[in-house]
């Protein structure tokens, strides 16, 4: 570790947190319908789609609208992937995906996961990336943020029957937040060298390797929303390690900022919505503290390097396997940690080749439930679940009915919250366990020893938590993993989102009590540290045995000089 590396992490946090405050205020204004600089376009969409702007939806209608839109969009993507051979913008004449791979990929992009069991350069056309994947990157992100908006509204008043209007939320978030942000970022990326073209790659007359085609396409636009919407689906197989996706250290910083900033802005938006800014800051602080510890930890582990390689005569300058020279160690590890802390799942270096402790941190951040700061929207509503559990725990200690922002948290909400948490845990552990005892699952592993277990555990964690990053040695395109992980992604997204909307609906209807001396304060350091404790104990503890058998065991074997 060097002071420069630590300063890089500090710089990133300063940039992200500094910009999250104004962005959060802007997002709150979007939620409240005060942003209207594309009003004619917005109104045109409503007219064509038959959306009644004034309609207010209860939690059931909100959930049904979201699920129905997701199902329709899932079907469209499945069709595009199967039929891509016949669709435009396919200069390489790539054939349609198999049914199981198309199912997996459609589930992946509908759920904002962006798990990639396919090799982009060979298995998906430029047209399918544009018309299919890229549109999902916007709408799945907008859907997540819409649910966050709905949850925020539940705390704004007494006896509310409505959580807002899903269609106007989705449209406004896409038009006023995601599209402008993506266009600005994409322009900066092109300036640095990310390509943006519909033409086929021209043959290169390389100096020593003969004539070769160059993979190229409309990269920059997709890259921008890939980070901004915490999606993570790379245009290329190497994802953000590919020089066309991430040309230099400055774009690497820009991309890391992009994938974090909405996640951190949402609690600030929450503070504005409930007219109590300290509430938002307390949530943001918990997110930032856990993420900062992860960034420093992973950097320390990778900077220490691989003792086996150092013994083989390699200079001790960190673990460079799977990392790009232009970024350096601290910027590489920070990108990957930020991308797993946000459900982005992009990588600028190969996590499978990280040291055991460097690799367990990204995995553990996902297992915590993706709240640091989590996927756009999903991170916010997940940390609200943890906040409810925190006040419940505090309420048990003092023997008083817990309240969160004046709303009584009762058995119904806690049951639904625990249901959501347990569904995720079940899919991760049961899925990884089942896969590791079937011959097909074992055949998918690329590495032996504990690293093999880590690959499978990481895969199920990533899919269920809708992250999408991988210990990429795992061969994902098998019937077991295509269907299994596809189902895990769908359950991880929607079987969590619907209980959350139910909680929001239940809380919205309750009266908002005014604060009394007996109210447990949900602002300030005491609450922030209680929340961190609940996230780590309730979110993380059940994964300790599995993580111990994988990366932790491997760490000790590595330092004992063992290889597999």
């Amino acid at each position: 570790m060097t002071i420069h590396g630590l300063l890089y992490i500090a710089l990133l946090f300063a940039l992200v947190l500094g910009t999250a405050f104004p962005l959060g205020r802007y997002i709150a204004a979007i939620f409240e319908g005060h942003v209207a600089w594309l009003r004619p376009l917005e109104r045109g969409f409503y007219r064509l789609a038959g959306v009644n702007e004034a309609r207010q939806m209860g939690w059931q209608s909100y959930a049904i609208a979201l699920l129905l839109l997701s199902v329709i969009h899932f079907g469209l993507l499945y069709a595009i992937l199967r039929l891509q051979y016949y669709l435009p913008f396919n200069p390489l004449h790539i054939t349609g995906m198999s049914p199981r791979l198309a199912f997996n990929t459609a589930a992946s992009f509908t759920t904002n996961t962006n798990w990639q069991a396919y090799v982009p350069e060979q298995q998906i056309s430029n047209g399918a990336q544009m018309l299919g994947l890229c549109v999902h990157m916007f709408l799945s992100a907008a859907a997540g943020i819409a649910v966050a908006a709905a949850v925020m509204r539940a705390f704004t008043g007494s006896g509310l029957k409505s959580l807002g209007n899903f269609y106007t939320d989705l449209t406004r978030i896409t038009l006023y937040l995601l599209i402008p942000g993506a266009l600005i970022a994409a322009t900066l990326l092109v300036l640095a060298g990310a390509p943006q073209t519909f033409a086929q790659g021209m043959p290169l007359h390389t100096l020593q390797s003969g004539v070769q085609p160059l993979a190229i396409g409309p990269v920059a636009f997709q890259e921008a929303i890939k980070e901004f919407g915490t999606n993570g689906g790379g245009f290329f197989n190497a994802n953000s390690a590919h020089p066309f996706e991430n040309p230099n250290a400055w774009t690497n910083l820009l991309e890391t900022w992009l994938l974090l900033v909405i996640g951190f802005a949402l609690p600030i938006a929450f503070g504005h919505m409930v007219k109590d800014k300290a509430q938002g800051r307390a949530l943001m602080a918990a997110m930032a503290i856990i993420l900062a510890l992860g960034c420093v930890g992973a950097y320390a582990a990778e900077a220490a390097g691989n003792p086996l390689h150092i013994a083989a005569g390699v200079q001790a300058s960190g673990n460079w396997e799977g990392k790009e020279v232009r970024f350096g160690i601290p910027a590489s590890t920070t990108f990957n940690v930020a991308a797993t802390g946000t459900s982005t799942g992009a990588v600028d270096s190969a996590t499978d080749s990280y040291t055991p402790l460097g690799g367990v941190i990204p995995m553990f951040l996902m297992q915590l439930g993706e709240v640091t700061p989590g996927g756009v929207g999903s991170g916010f509503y997940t940390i609200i679940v943890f906040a409810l559990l925190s006040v419940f725990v505090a309420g048990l200690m003092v023997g008083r009915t817990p309240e969160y922002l004046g709303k009584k948290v009762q058995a119904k909400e806690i049951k639904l919250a625990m249901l959501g948490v347990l569904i995720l845990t079940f899919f991760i552990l049961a899925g990884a366990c089942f896969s590791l005892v079937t011959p097909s699952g074992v055949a998918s592993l690329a590495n032996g020893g504990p690293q093999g277990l880590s690959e499978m555990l990481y895969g199920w964690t990533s899919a269920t938590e809708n992250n999408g990053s991988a210990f990429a040695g795992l061969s994902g395109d098998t019937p077991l993993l295509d269907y299994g992980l596809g189902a895990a992604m769908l359950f991880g997204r929607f079987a969590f989102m619907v209980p959350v909307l139910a909680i929001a609906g239940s809380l919205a209807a309750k009266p908002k009590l005014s604060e009394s001396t007996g109210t447990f304060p949900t602002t300030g350091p005491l609450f922030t540290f209680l929340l961190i404790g609940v996230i780590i104990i309730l979110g993380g503890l059940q994964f300790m045995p599995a993580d111990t058998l994988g990366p932790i065991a491997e760490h000790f074997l590595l330092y004992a000089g063992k290889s597999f």
Partner: protein
Amino acid sequence: MILRELRPAFSLVVLFTLLIGLILPGIFTGAMQAVLPWQANGSLIRQNGQAIGSVLIGQNFTGAQYFVPRPSVLSPNPYTQDTSGASNLGPTSKVLLTSVRQRVAAYLKAYGPGPVPADAVTASGSGLDPDISSENALRQAPAVAAARHLPAATVIALVNHLARHRALGGIIGTNHVNVLRLNLALDHLPPQ
């Protein structure tokens, strides 16, 4: 209840697919092709009218005459320009350890005793890493100079001239040099 939502849900999917999938990329691509055509088309270097490579994408070089890039695990050849990927071998992988040992031995044989920079014996994340660390380039420079019958100082000066340095007080990036640019510059040095 579901039927009521069918029209708005379906229509919004179609409208946004048209807007985000066709109209926006069309306008944005057109604008970038007009304003930043070199970058938008892959930052290509041309010689005698032919594209010989992208500045951003590494190519394979072998032999003592050229600076050698980082190991690449792409198939069928290292640095195959239309693929990308890492080894994905874990920290305790025997396969990786064997490769690293072989690369260390080859590096010491080619460039003489001394430190072996980590980037010279490990594969990158993309398999297309266009750069090597300045340290690695300076270690290779005397051998390249000898193979080309140039003074070592000339080649070292060239490396230093083309090297990129850490920015913002040393916080951002690394000290490195682009292998394709370096080797092209070598080919263009006046003969001694």
